């Protein structure tokens, strides 16, 4: 079957039991605090690097998904969620408690580059300080912000001051006596090429980029706080739609649904899983179409025709999604235990509309290939620019089309199956080019794979026995998962691994709700791709990352 992974005969790929791992770490472990998804080892705050290095180099845990931090009554805690790129079902968590009065913990940045931003976020929102961190300052909130909003004693009503600084050229001093002059250039936060409100602090040496630093937080809408103040059953589900708002709503809702269903032990009926799978793949098509549209615009303003074509195809998918869910963009269609309502009546009409869309899709993809990928100008701009080697991608925790464009064969739909994906016939798309062109090709080919999935789902749904069309499991009106249960679950969103960490405290609201956004990690790779390149290539690289700021900033 196409879903089987290529064999990897590597020591690191060997699955170890929790006890073997504990033996491997030896004295580093001071306790166990297992999560629902993985064994969790408690370690001392000054042994973070040693522990993570052991797990990475000797046990093969090469993917730091996320660092989730939180404050308890008596301590602070950072959790490092580790996985393997080769087999994401092998997970391990490293729990690092820190002192309540003086929360300091060692930084993991020297082991995993991706920890840089994740720890800055933990510092910003919770207030844990990381020793040995290269650049520990606020990342989402203005630098003059007072207090740490997700800590326990934060007063939401206190006044705050935000600044509008004029930026000095950070490299000026280095070049004072040199012949070459550098120029500092702000790109954004209001700029058409930044896909929203992203700010790139760029230093140019002539036409080349000497340094680029993404400055984020211009759309930090307190999503985690909103989720923590909503009840599991109904109040959280509308928010995921607004993380990755490029029509990827159902994919995001699935991330929350998967985490919460596993936490509360809810079984989803098979029929609902098929509907979910179909809807989610429609969303993926819509999201990739917009990625394609805006990427073409970024690379060359003359590609407005491509933009219009892709928007046209998006409108068609959105019509189908509107028939299914009742909304164009913010679907709010999933419920814990299933979906909110059955397929629209008359069903035959919905199926035939879907089939019509799928029938014309190969033709329009052919058209896109004619318009852009086989266009010489486009190829010159994208082939061999924005290079992201696979090892670098892994070190930064890149996932989704960005990782797959660098040849990293990682797709949670296949590797950590959920929904109905493992029953269907489809392929994971990878490209080895590591450049802007490959990332675009991956998205275009994924659209074809999504179409294959939708078609199989439609076949299944058409023949589904009439009396087995159960759309929702029986779920209690109020969900109160057991006290101090922790879980991290991820799904393959449009941009990559979208994960949720939830800690319950016995009430009907989560005590900690942490979102692992794929774009947040993917955007971190931008300096690697951009430094030394020409300025137009930076714009192309940024476009090929396909970030959405609602998800980066949350």
């Amino acid at each position: 079957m196409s879903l089987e992974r290529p064999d990897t005969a590597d020591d690191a790929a060997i699955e170890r039991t929790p006890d073997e791992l504990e033996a491997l770490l030896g004295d580093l472990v001071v306790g166990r605090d297992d999560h629902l998804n993985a064994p969790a080892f408690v370690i001392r705050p000054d042994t973070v690097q040693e522990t993570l290095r052991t797990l990475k180099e000797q046990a093969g845990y090469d993917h730091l998904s996320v660092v989730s931090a939180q404050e308890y009554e008596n301590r602070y805690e950072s959790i490092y969620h580790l996985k393997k790129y080769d087999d994401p079902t092998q997970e391990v968590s490293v729990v690092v408690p820190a002192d309540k009065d003086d929360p300091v913990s060692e930084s993991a940045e020297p082991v995993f580059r991706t920890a840089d931003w994740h720890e800055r976020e933990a510092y910003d929102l919770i207030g844990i300080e990381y020793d040995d961190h290269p650049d520990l300052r606020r990342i989402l909130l203005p630098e003059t912000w007072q207090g740490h909003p997700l800590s326990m004693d934060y007063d939401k009503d206190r006044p705050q001051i935000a600044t509008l600084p004029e930026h000095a050229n950070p490299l000026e001093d280095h070049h004072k006596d040199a012949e070459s002059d550098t120029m500092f250039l702000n790109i954004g936060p209001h700029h058409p090429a930044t896909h929203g409100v992203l700010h790139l602090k760029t230093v140019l040496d002539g036409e080349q980029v000497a340094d680029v630093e993404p400055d984020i937080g211009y759309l930090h809408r307190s999503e985690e706080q909103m989720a923590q103040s909503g009840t599991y059953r109904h109040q959280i589900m509308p928010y995921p739609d607004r993380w990755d708002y490029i029509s990827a709503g159902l994919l995001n809702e699935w991330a929350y649904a998967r985490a919460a269903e596993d936490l509360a032990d809810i079984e989803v009926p098979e029929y609902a899983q098929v509907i979910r799978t179909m809807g989610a793949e429609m969303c993926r098509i819509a999201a990739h179409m917009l990625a394609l549209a805006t990427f073409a615009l970024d690379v060359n303003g003359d590609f407005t025709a491509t933009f219009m074509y892709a928007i046209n195809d998006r409108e068609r998918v959105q019509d189908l999604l509107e028939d299914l869910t009742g909304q164009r963009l913010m679907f709010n269609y999933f419920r814990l235990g299933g979906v909110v309502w059955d397929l629209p009546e008359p069903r035959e009409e919905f199926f035939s509309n879907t089939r019509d869309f799928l029938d014309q899709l190969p033709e329009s993809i052919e058209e896109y290939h004619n318009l852009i990928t086989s266009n010489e100008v486009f190829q010159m701009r994208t082939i061999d620019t924005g290079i992201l080697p696979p090892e670098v991608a892994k070190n930064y925790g890149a996932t989704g089309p960005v990782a797959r464009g660098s040849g990293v064969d990682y797709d949670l739909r296949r590797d950590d199956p959920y929904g109905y994906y493992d029953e269907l016939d489809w392929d994971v798309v990878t490209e080895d080019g590591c450049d802007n062109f490959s990332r675009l090709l991956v998205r275009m080919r994924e659209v074809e794979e999504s179409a294959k999935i939708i078609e199989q789902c439609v076949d299944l749904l058409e023949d589904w026995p009439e009396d087995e069309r159960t759309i929702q499991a029986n779920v209690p009106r109020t969900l109160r998962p057991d006290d101090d249960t922790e879980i991290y679950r991820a799904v393959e969103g449009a941009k990559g691994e979208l994960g949720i960490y939830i800690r319950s405290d016995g009430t009907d609201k989560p005590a900690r709700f942490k979102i692992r956004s794929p774009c947040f990690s993917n955007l971190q790779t931008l300096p690697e791709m951009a430094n030394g390149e020409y300025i137009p290539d930076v714009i192309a690289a940024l476009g090929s990352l396909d970030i959405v700021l609602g998800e980066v900033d949350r």
Partner: protein
Amino acid sequence: MSSDQPFITDESQVVTETRDARMTGQGDRFNSRLREAFGSSPFILTKFDKFLNWCRGSSMFMLQFGIACCSIEMMHTYAVKHDLDRFGSGVPRASPRQADVMIVPGTIVSKFAPRMKRVYDQMPEPKFVVGMGSCTISGGPFQEGYNVIKGAEEVIPIDIHVPGCPPRPEALVYGVVKLQERVANGEAAPVTVKPYELEEFSDLERDELVDKLTDQIDDDELVMRYNFADSP
């Protein structure tokens, strides 16, 4: 005078030579039924202000300004199918200095509000603002957020509010057309309360917070102070 062409004067009653000379001087390509209707006296009489307002309302340059979820629907409004250009307002300008209308499509958070104010200030007068979506009205679903400004009107004045989360493209088209109507009629923008201003740090009233930040912020740096306790 024939009844199906009410505005054309009777050919036999006027000296047609003059009229022909005037019309042929233009070249046939420019002659339309409308031009024909004006006949030998191609002048209209109106107030200058009214004419100018009509011009303004008929051709509005929008600022290409994307913030959050609503900007996706805004793009759809500009693109095929909904095509805002049909109503004479579909030319997005990348620079605020060339724009007449700013559509605010999304949630305003503390870090972005000073930047939005700056972009608004850069637009030349007369300028108009369409607030798109619930977030620009009240903060919408994120109103409780610790970092969210409770409505764009806390920062800049807004002429038209389009509710929805997000509003459908049709709703945005309706809002923009309403704005055009108002502009063409010369109706003034509403007076709004704007509690958050961009000001120099040294101009802020001294209090605990300002004292604490004195070391971090230069006196002449522009800042925006949020009083979240007073927000609606």
